[in-house]
Structures are given as structure tokens and as C-alpha cells.
């Protein structure tokens, strides 16, 4: 049934495209129904699936002579991320209820993006995975280039080129893996169980990992992320930060680390204190955490603050992956979910609730508007989302960051200190943004045109995202029960045997 998440989204995209241009309400409703249907399917699978074991969803030959199959499968990690996609998809439709121009194209691209994201998470054949992974680039390019705001064509182009270069690196690695294993199969399990020679893994791992990590905002290849997020329309930035960046992290874990586990092992020599690719990427991740947080601290554009905070949070995920212990990697997956929900929410507040009403994102201009009075709902939402993103207990961010912190501590206390500094800076930039935008010293100029009140769709979207985050925060067992078994499937056995 889970495969229908993809089909419904693609079919919905086609339907929306063919609907008459004038019927905006109908188009939105169809898009919302498709998103809800996907969410419902994901939720059903999430609830029914007792363990995190791998189950095949669909399997059919595609190009048999090359060993390529249409193979969809789900394990615990997949289920969590598919559910995340469902939640963010609904919230995204609700937050783009006010799109007025070229509505059917907008939602067609939107649903195409959602469908491909589901596809990436569910693919178990690497060719198929790559197909969906690259299709994602097209709708996100158009969503930004057509409906975006500040420097949209620049932002869209930068994002597209980074993505294409990243996916080209991935493709080289995948083809090489396929060829070295004898060109029989593109199946993930088959390739992951093949024992690649060490020297091959030593160059293939960084290639594929970096290729995926570009999309996950790995420092120093993160620069597309803030500009892309800022240029994108609200729904697109929600999806971009919420799920598309997760695709990169998911690829790192699911493909790079399972295919080439030995690529993480020691080089046998030291360069500048680095003894393995694991050290390199862990340090880059910590730099990303600190850099993102510090840059977010000095931004004057509200959306840039959120954009750089995404870079910082994605750094946590990559660091979690590089801890190579159960708790760290589990934390990374939880952080994917948590950041997906919270980034969606923060972009929703800034892009939809504030920018669409005040037409500015400058913190200095938002302050005098007395927003805590004018838009109390937005204020409360941002405060809650900000607290969650700081990692306050009770929210999903706390669970995730704690697990990553513990995982990092086990590897090296030095890394953990870096993480701790990142968390503290995180508190600072959220606090600063909140202070400047909502609680600045009101100059008591009563705006003659008060901003329009928050609409029902926005409230619903906010509620959904916030509730999900609190649910994960209060009852983390909900996702942990699925993630932990998934990390112990045969797929990850190479990783266990490698540098684990």
C-alpha cells in the first residue's frame, strides 16, 4: 500500500495540471486531499508496522538485462521519514493556501516533488533511488524560479547546479559500485553485501558521501541552502528544509555508509590530525554546526536566520551519522524528523505568517511593527518552535540533540564540546531573532493597516507540525522502536563490522 503514496502524488500532479485555471479552490482541495491520502497511507504503515524489519513494498523487473528492478521496500527508518514527508506535505499545502498566480502549475510541481521524495525514501534499487533523487531537482527548481521572491532565479540556479553536481558524484560512485560488483544487480541489498576492495571503498565512499551530503548542507558546500531557502516560496522552503535536505542525509546513511563501510575505517596515516574520512566528515559537520549558528546570529534577514539555522541543524545529523554508534545514528534519524518538522514550522511563520502580511523580512523593520500584539498567534508559534529548535525538553529537538551529544561524547569529548557550543549558540540566535522581531521596544506607532489575521489553514498547519514535534518529544519510543531494529538489519552489517 505504501507504494501508493508515490502514485497518488504523481497522479494528483497530473490531475491538478489538467484542471481549469480559474478553479483555485478546487485545485487546492485536490492537492490537500492527495497530501492527506499520502499521510494516511504513511500513518497506517507506521502504526501497523510492529518492528523495524525490512518489508518489500513492490518488486517488478524494469530493465532485467542490466539487473535493474522496480523495487520499493520499507524499514523503520523509511517509515519514519515517509511519515515526516506526509506531515510536512499537508502543512505545506495549508501554508500555500494563498498562492494566487498559476495555481495549477504550482501544485502540480508541488505534488511531483512530494511524490519523488516518497520515491527516494522507498526505493531499494539504487537506479530507482537515483531516478527519484534527480527528479526532485526539477520541481524544486521551478517552484523557486517561478514563485520565489528575493533573487529567485539566482537562488534556483545555484540550488540546481549544486544538486546536479552532487548527484553526478553520486552517479559515478553508484555506477562504479555496480560495475565492480559485476554488473548483475542494482539492488541495494545485493550491492551492500558485496565486499568491495578497500582501496575502492576509500575513494568511492567520500565521493558518494559528499555527493549526498551536498544536498544535506554539508559545510563548505552548504551555500546553496540559505540562498535557496530565502528565494523559495514558503511551501517550497518548508519542503526544501523539511524533507529535501533529509534526502541527502538519508542517502549518506542508506547508500554511502552501507555500500562502502570500509571507507570509514582508518587510512593508516595521519594528515593534519585526520586519520580517516570519518574524522574529516565529523569535523566538517561540527564546523557546519558552529558556522551555521554563528552566521545565524548576525543575520538581519529573518529568513536567512532560519536558513543558516538549517545548516547548523543538518550538521547535527551528519555528525550523528559519523559517530558510528547506535545512539548517535539513531539520534541523527530522530534529528532528521525533528528538524523536518521544526524547519517547516519556522519557515511557515517567517515566510507565510510574517512576510506575506508585512512584506518585509528585515528584523529591524519587523520590530517596530509590534508584532506580539498584532499577530499573537504567529508570536506564540514562533516562540514554541524556537524553543523546540533550541532543544528544550518536551520537544523532538531535545531527544535528538541529546542522543547525538551522547554519541559524540563516546567518540571524542572534543566533538561533544563542539556540539555543546553549537547548542548554546542555537539558543542565542533564536533568542535574538525572537527579541528583535516580536518583542522589540514598541515605538507605539499604531499601524493604520493592521496585518490580516492568521487564517484557518495556517492554524491547522501549525497545529499539525507542532503536535508532531511534541509527540516525538514526549514519547520518543514511538520512533525509536522502529529505528533501532532497522539499524540492525543485515543491510548495516558491513557498517557494524567496519568502523562501528
Amino acid at each position, binding site marked *: 500500500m505504501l507504494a501508493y503514496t508515490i502514485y497518488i502524488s504523481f497522479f494528483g500532479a497530473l490531475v491538478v495540471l489538467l484542471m481549469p485555471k480559474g478553479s483555485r479552490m478546487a485545485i487546492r482541495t485536490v492537492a490537500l486531499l492527495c497530501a492527506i491520502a499520502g499521510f494516511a497511507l504513511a500513518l497506517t504503515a507506521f502504526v501497523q508496522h510492529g518492528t523495524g524489519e525490512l518489508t518489500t513494498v513492490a518488486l517488478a523487473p524494469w530493465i*532485467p*538485462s542490466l539487473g535493474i528492478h522496480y523495487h520499493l521496500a520499507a524499514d523503520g527508518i523509511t517509515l519514519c521519514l515517509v511519515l515526516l514527508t506526509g506531515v510536512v506535505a499537508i502543512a505545506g499545502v495549508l501554508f500555500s493556501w494563498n498562492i494566487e498566480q498559476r495555481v495549477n502549475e504550482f501544485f502540480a510541481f508541488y505534488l511531483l516533488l512530494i511524490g519523488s521524495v516518497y520515491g527516494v525514501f522507498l526505493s531499494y534499487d539504487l*537506479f530507482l533511488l537515483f531516478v527519484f533523487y534527480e527528479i526532485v531537482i526539477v520541481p524544486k*527548481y521551478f517552484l523557486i524560479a517561478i514563485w520565489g521572491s528575493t533573487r529567485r532565479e539566482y537562488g534556483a*540556479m545555484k540550488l540546481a547546479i549544486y544538486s546536479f553536481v552532487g548527484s*553526478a558524484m553520486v*552517479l*559515478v560512485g553508484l555506477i*562504479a559500485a555496480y560495475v565492480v560488483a559485476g554488473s548483475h544487480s542494482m539492488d541495494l541489498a545485493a550491492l551492500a553485501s558485496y565486499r568491495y576492495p578497500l582501496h575502492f571503498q576509500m575513494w568511492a565512499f567520500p565521493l558518494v558521501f559528499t555527493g549526498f551530503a551536498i544536498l544535506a548542507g554539508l559545510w563548505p558546500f552548504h551555500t546553496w541552502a540559505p540562498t535557496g531557502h530565502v528565494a523559495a516560496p514558503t511551501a517550497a522552503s518548508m519542503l526544501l528544509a523539511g524533507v529535501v535536505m533529509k534526502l541527502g542525509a538519508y542517502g549518506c546513511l542508506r547508500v554511502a555508509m552501507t555500500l562502502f563501510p570500509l571507507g570509514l575505517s582508518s587510512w593508516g596515516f595521519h594528515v593534519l590530525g585526520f586519520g580517516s574520512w570519518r574524522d574529516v566528515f565529523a569535523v566538517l559537520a561540527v564546523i557546519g554546526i558552529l558556522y551555521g549558528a554563528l552566521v545565524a546570529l548576525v543575520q538581519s534577514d529573518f529568513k536567512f536566520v532560519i536558513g543558516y539555522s538549517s545548516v547548523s541543524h543538518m550538521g547535527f545529523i551528519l555528525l550523528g551519522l559519523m559517530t558510528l554508534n547506535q545512539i548517535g545514528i539513531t539520534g541523527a534519524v530522530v534529528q532528521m524528523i525533528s528538524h523536518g518538522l521544526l524547519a517547516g514550522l519556522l519557515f511557515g511563520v517567517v515566510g507565510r505568517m510574517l512576510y506575506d502580511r508585512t512584506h518585509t523580512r528585515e528584523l529591524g523593520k519587523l520590530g517596530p511593527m509590534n508584532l506580539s500584539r498584532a499577530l499573537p498567534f504567529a508570536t506564540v508559534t514562533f516562540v514554541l518552535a524556537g524553543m523546540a529548535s533550541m532543544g528544550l525538553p518536551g520537544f523532538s529537538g531535545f531527544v535528538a540533540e541529546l542522543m547525538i551529544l551522547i554519541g559524540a561524547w563516546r567518540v571524542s569529548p572534543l566533538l561533544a564540546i563542539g556540539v555543546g557550543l553549537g547548542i548554546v549558540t542555537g539558543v542565542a540566535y533564536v533568542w535574538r531573532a525572537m527579541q528583535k522581531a516580536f518583542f522589540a521596544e514598541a515605538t507605539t506607532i499604531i499601524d493604520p493597516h493592521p496585518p490580516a489575521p492568521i487564517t484557518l489553514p495556517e492554524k491547522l498547519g501549525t497545529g499539525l507540525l507542532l503536535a508532531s514535534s511534541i509527540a516525538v518529544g514526549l514519547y520518543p519510543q514511538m520512533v525509536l522502536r522502529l529505528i533501532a531494529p532497522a539499524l540492525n538489519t543485515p543491510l548495516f552489517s558491513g557498517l557494524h563490522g567496519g568502523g562501528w
Partner: protein
Amino acid sequence: MSTNLLALLPELVLTITGVLVMVLEPVIPAGKSRKPLGWLAILGSLLSGLAAFYQLQIVNAQGTLTAFYSTIQIDPFSIFFHLLIAAVVLVTLLGSLDYFESPITHAGEYFALVLFGAVGMMFMTSSVELLMVFIGLEISSISTYILAGFRKGRATASESSIKYFLLGSFATAFFLYGVALIYGATGSTSIGPIAAGLAITRTPTMAILAVAMVLIGLGFKVSAAPFHVWTPDVYQGAPAPVVGLMSTAPKAAAFAVLLRFLFNGTPMLHGHWILLIEILAVASMCLGNLGALKQHDVKRLLAYSSIAHAGYLLVAFTGTHQNAVAGACFYTATYAAMNVGAFLVLSQLSGFSERIRSIEDFTGLALKRPGMSALLGFFLLSLIGIPFTGGFFGKFYVFSGALQNGHVWLGIVGLANSGVACFYYLRLLAAIYSRPTSDSVAYIPVRKVTAPAAVALAATALATLGLGILPNKLVHLVERATPTTTAAVAVQPTQQ
């Protein structure tokens, strides 16, 4: 039917139709529409495709056919190219049936020349004797020289034509000189005996020089860098449907010749020519993509893109024999589908007078012509290599062949290039989709897409999509297409 006739059936059909079109041309009074001639030509190309299909049945049943003292060899390889060329010609003719805005008196020549050109290209792919290849090359080249300048009365047309002619015959001279040297080194000009002669030649250096010169000559024809300088100018000035044709079919034919010549004729020198191929491939990919970055004229942009695609195609040659043939065949087919499609859209949009040319002219096209924009967008995405289009699978197939043979660096350079390449395609797409309608788009009259053109567009789009989603069928076909040097060909040419 005698074997000789059967072996040349597709070419014969085309020749007869072409001659008929030429003869009927003066019968139709001046000022009358030349469309019936177009329909006749379409019928001819359709029949020729069917003839090639008929040959395939025969070959499947009886094995390879040879004819004319073993100078013509009909095997799945040549039939594949026959079918491809017939398809490209058919689609081009359908698309250019209503291309001429007013009934001009010499439109019949246009249809006839397209057919004659196709005859030459088909000859190139089926012949295993370099003399026949040379004649085929000349027939196809001379026809396309004239077609390039077909928008008579415009300075750009004749300029395009003369540049194409001068550089084309320049390349021919190289090719001929190479053939002469290979004749000297091996005592033969047939593929099979060349391979045999190379084994015992006393002048290997001359043979290497010969292969290099043949490569230069054909490199010009397929517009591989550094022999690509003519391409942008010629494509810019030539009529759009003709560019669609000449950027695909003659290139496919030249690649077929290269495949036969290099893999069947000179496998002994593999170690030498593989290096040249690698250089050509890397140069074409890099120069093509870098050159395209700063173009404003859409046809020029696509010209540079075709140089880059020639590079990707050459990458296929670094695989094993079977991989190379399969990869190159698949890629020529997908490239033909998407590039002919893209130029058909251009010809439908801007018409014979080509009023919209530059990227600026295309701004906001999506708002005025959503259907055409979507089609063009689709072909551009295929040229980038987005999944679910033929372009993606073609690239995957070609590069996996190259990597399989250990050419990792070539794979990395190629795929990095395709990352860079997305920039200029997306620039055009951004102009079409993300900006308000420009004046030049606003003022162009909306030409109705006629039924034949619609069929042609649908055919190319479906082919591009089909090759991306269900490549299985074609993969199966091209994997069996590896031509062999049959024993019949390997006999010494003393029968004369």
C-alpha cells in the same frame, strides 16, 4: 528478389521517391502548393523504414546479408541505423511540411534533398568498403550543404551553407587521405581485409597516421572538438528542421562508420586510437559545455550542446566492443529523438522567418504558448539528463560501459560536465517559465500547429519518454547489434 536488391531496398525506395519528387516538381505549376510532393516524400521514407524492418525479419531468419561483392553488409547493426535514419527523416519531413510560409517554387527540391541525403547516410551505415562509405558520405554531405542554405534570400543562410561546405569538404579531404594511407598500409579498403592486413603490415606507423586522419575527417562530421568550429555558425543560419536533421542523422551515420572502422577494421590499433578518442571526448564535452554557457542565440546554444553530446557519445567508444556499440546506438537514438524534437519545437515557434531566436526572445513563452513550452522544456530536461527521459538512461548506459572498461576519469569528467551543462539549459528554461512575457513573444503571431507537425512532435516526445521509462526493448536490440566481420567479407577483393 535478388540479394543485391534486397540489401539495398531501403536506399532504393528512397532514391526512387527522391527522383520522382524531382521529376514531378516542374509539373506542378508555379504558385501552387508543393505539399503533395512532401506527402510523397513522407510516403517514401515510411516505405523505406518498412523495407528496413523487412530486412530485419530476413536477417533474423537467415543471418547477415551481403551484397555487391561483399561491399554491403546488412546486419542488425546497419538495420538499426537504417531504421533510425528513416525515422528521423520521416519526422523531419512531417515537421517541415508546413514550414514554408508561402508556397515557394522550389520546396520540392527540399523534400528530394532530404531523401537523397538519407540515402547517403544509409549507405554509410551498411557498407563495409571504405569506397562505398566515401560515396555515401559525399551524397549525404552534398545534400546537407544545400539544405543548410535553404532559406534563400537571407544572408545568414548562404553564409551557413558556405561555412558548412568549406569545412565539410576540408574534412572529406582528411578522410580520403586517411583511406589512401590505410590502403597503402594494408593493401585493401574493405573493413575485413584491413583488419587482416594490419596484422601483417610492414608500415604500422602509416596505419596509425591513417586512423588518425580518418578520425579527424569523421570528427569534423560529428562535430567533435577541436573540429567543431563550424557547428554553431552553421546551425544558427540553417533552417530549424534541417538543423534537427543534420545534427542527428548524418552524425549517427558517421558514428556507425567509426564504430565499424575502429572496432572491426582496426582492432589491432586499439591502444592507439583509444587515446585519440579519449582526447576528442574530453575536449568535446568540455568545450561544448563551456561554449554553450555564454550563448544567447538558442540555436547556437543547442549547437554547442550537440558538440557536448558528441563528446558523451565518444565516451561510449571507450567500452568493450559490445558495450561501445550498444551504448553508442542507444545514445544516438535518444539524442536523435530529443534533439529533433527540440528543433521541431523551435521551427514551429519561430517559423520560416525565425523571428524569435535569442534567449531574451523566449522570455515568458510559457504564458503564451504553454503546450509548446512544456514540450521544449521536456526536450531540454532530456538533454540535461533528467530521469524518465531517454537522455538520462542514455548517459547512464554510456558511462556504465566506460566505467566497466576502467575509464573512471572519463566517467567523472563526463558526469561533472553534465552537472555544468544544466546551467545553460536551465537558463533557457528560466527565461521561458519564470518571467513575464517579452515583447517579441507577445507580438509573434500564434501559428497553428498543423496535424503533421503535431504527429511529428508527439512522436519525438513519446520516443524520448519511452526510451527513458522503458528502455528495455531497445537495450535488448542494441546489445545484439555488435557487427561481426563475416567470413564472406574477409575474402581478398580479387573478384574484380
